[in-house]
């Protein structure tokens, strides 16, 4: 969360937000909710703008990380899992890790809970967190940043996980106002901790609403607008991942990705077709056409209202 964000209108295009806030070599959180609300539109735009040497930090971002690796954007992966959640392994991730193609990548292993604690520490000003849940795991050997120590109270072993403070976090929200005040519902994984830990926050809003809509329910705000640096109106930014109450998951897209990226030439073709040859996410949506429309949630299962009246 940035240092002196002034509360004013932050609505901008995703291309402009990435051009402004993401440098080569940046440490990026892109999808900390696990398998829903993954900001794939930002994945595409990072590829289009040709960012290099990124450190992708997230517990699990489904195929987003694999795409960025394949496109040559990634030098480092910090997280718990990289692959294709419903489709199997990530071919680009394997190629990079096993053969250094297109680039070698450094892998910083965490478990989901321990990376959660690293974000929590980064978000709330704690230098590190002592964790028991990765004791006994060889993650303690492969990740040199985590120290094995003794709990000074009990004398028992404990793993010290230092704070992670990413440069930029992208998150997808169901609705936001022009100042970045946002509503999210459904499971959020590590979205709150990872975003607050980050120096800059870029919100991808499925819908832009009047400020009164957000202000009607301040307890549904996960990240307040004063912490947000840019708001981009990108419907279906999550595609092919789901967004609760907005978009269903495009399962066949994940399956097709797995089939169509088995070798580097195939991936290059896939990436041209779905990313590089499209100017922006609007063009991506247009290309999806009816396939995207079928994923749109049309039903209504509304939450019971909460009353905030004072009198």
């Amino acid at each position, binding site marked *: 969360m940035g240092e002196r964000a002034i509360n004013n209108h932050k609505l901008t295009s995703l291309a402009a937000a990435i051009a402004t806030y993401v440098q080569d070599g940046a440490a990026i959180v892109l999808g900390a909710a*696990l398998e829903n609300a993954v900001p794939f539109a930002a994945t595409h735009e990072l590829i289009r703008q040709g960012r290099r040497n990124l450190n992708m930090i997230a517990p699990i971002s489904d195929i987003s990380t694999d795409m960025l690796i394949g496109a040559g954007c990634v030098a480092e992966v910090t997280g*718990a899992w990289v692959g294709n959640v*419903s489709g199997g392994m990530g071919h680009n991730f394997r190629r990079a890790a096993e053969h250094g193609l297109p680039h070698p990548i450094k892998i910083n292993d965490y478990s*989901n809970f321990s990376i959660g604690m690293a974000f929590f520490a980064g978000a709330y000003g704690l230098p590190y967190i002592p964790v028991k849940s990765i004791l006994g795991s060889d993650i303690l050997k492969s990740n040199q940043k985590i120290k094995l120590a003794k709990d000074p109270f009990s004398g028992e072993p404990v793993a010290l996980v230092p704070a992670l403070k990413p440069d930029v976090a992208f998150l997808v929200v169901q609705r936001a106002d022009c100042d970045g005040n946002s509503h999210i519902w459904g499971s959020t*994984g590590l979205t709150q901790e990872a975003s607050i830990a980050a120096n800059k926050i870029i919100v991808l809003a499925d819908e832009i609403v009047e400020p009164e809509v957000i202000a009607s329910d301040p307890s549904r705000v996960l990240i307040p607008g004063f912490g947000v640096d840019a708001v981009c109106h990108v419907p279906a930014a999550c595609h092919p991942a*789901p967004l609760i109450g907005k978009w269903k998951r495009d399962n066949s897209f994940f399956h097709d990705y797995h089939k169509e990226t088995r070798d580097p030439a195939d991936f290059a073709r896939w990436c041209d077709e779905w990313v590089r040859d499209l100017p922006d996410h609007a063009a991506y949506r247009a290309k999806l056409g009816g396939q995207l429309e079928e994923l749109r949630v049309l039903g209504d299962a509304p939450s019971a209202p909460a009353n905030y009246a004072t009198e």
Partner: protein
Amino acid sequence: MTEYSTQELMIIAAARQIQDGERIFVGMRLPITAYGVARLTHAPNAVGLFESGVARYEPADGMLYTMCDGPNQLGAAWTTGLIQIMGLLSGGRVHAGFIGGAEVDRYGNINTSYIGDTENPKVKLPGSGGAPDIAAMAERLVIIINHQKHRLVEKVDFITSPGFLDGGDARTKAGLPGGGPAVLITDRAILQPYGPTNEFHLASIHPGHTLEEVVQNTGWALKSVPDVAQTPPPTKEEMDALHHIDKEGFWRS
């Protein structure tokens, strides 16, 4: 006698590991179906936990490809963050967790990270997810894996999720709070840790499989518990529940 596939038997063996009122880290695919069967049969008050930040009573209505899909969130007991859900692992609040892996060894250590060396891996597997946390902290761990010699190995290349480490009391000495792996369910048999070494021993053989076949497909010199049984076949009630959950017959073949 009820007909069933090997996969269906595995699901029902997994469902039997869930006791009523327990909180279970479910995971996707086979275990989520097992959770549904348990809820419909002997464990109507079990609670299913999903590390993305979901807790459910009733299993989701609809096929799930990931734990974050809409049907797993609609009507959930709790949709929240990862820390809130995985934090329940502390203090014995989670009774069991299901995990799979590419490799498991004689002490129940699981590898989902690297085949070969970490610097120069032969195969880079997707990684840990929340499995180490569940393996470290849950009261019991249920491991599900296909029974092949290259999967049930003498020693895993990388311990992603700890079982009994080097065996004996190594796990306790390492400071791990949870009870460790309680059972290993394969497509041929059920293995359990036995004796002071905590080495996995053959506990029961699935109907239609033989001791010889199970031993030949295990990567270590598999010993047996004194009273090796046949895995009880699914009951009609269990199969009815499974067919109710698995309407499309995904697990039938």
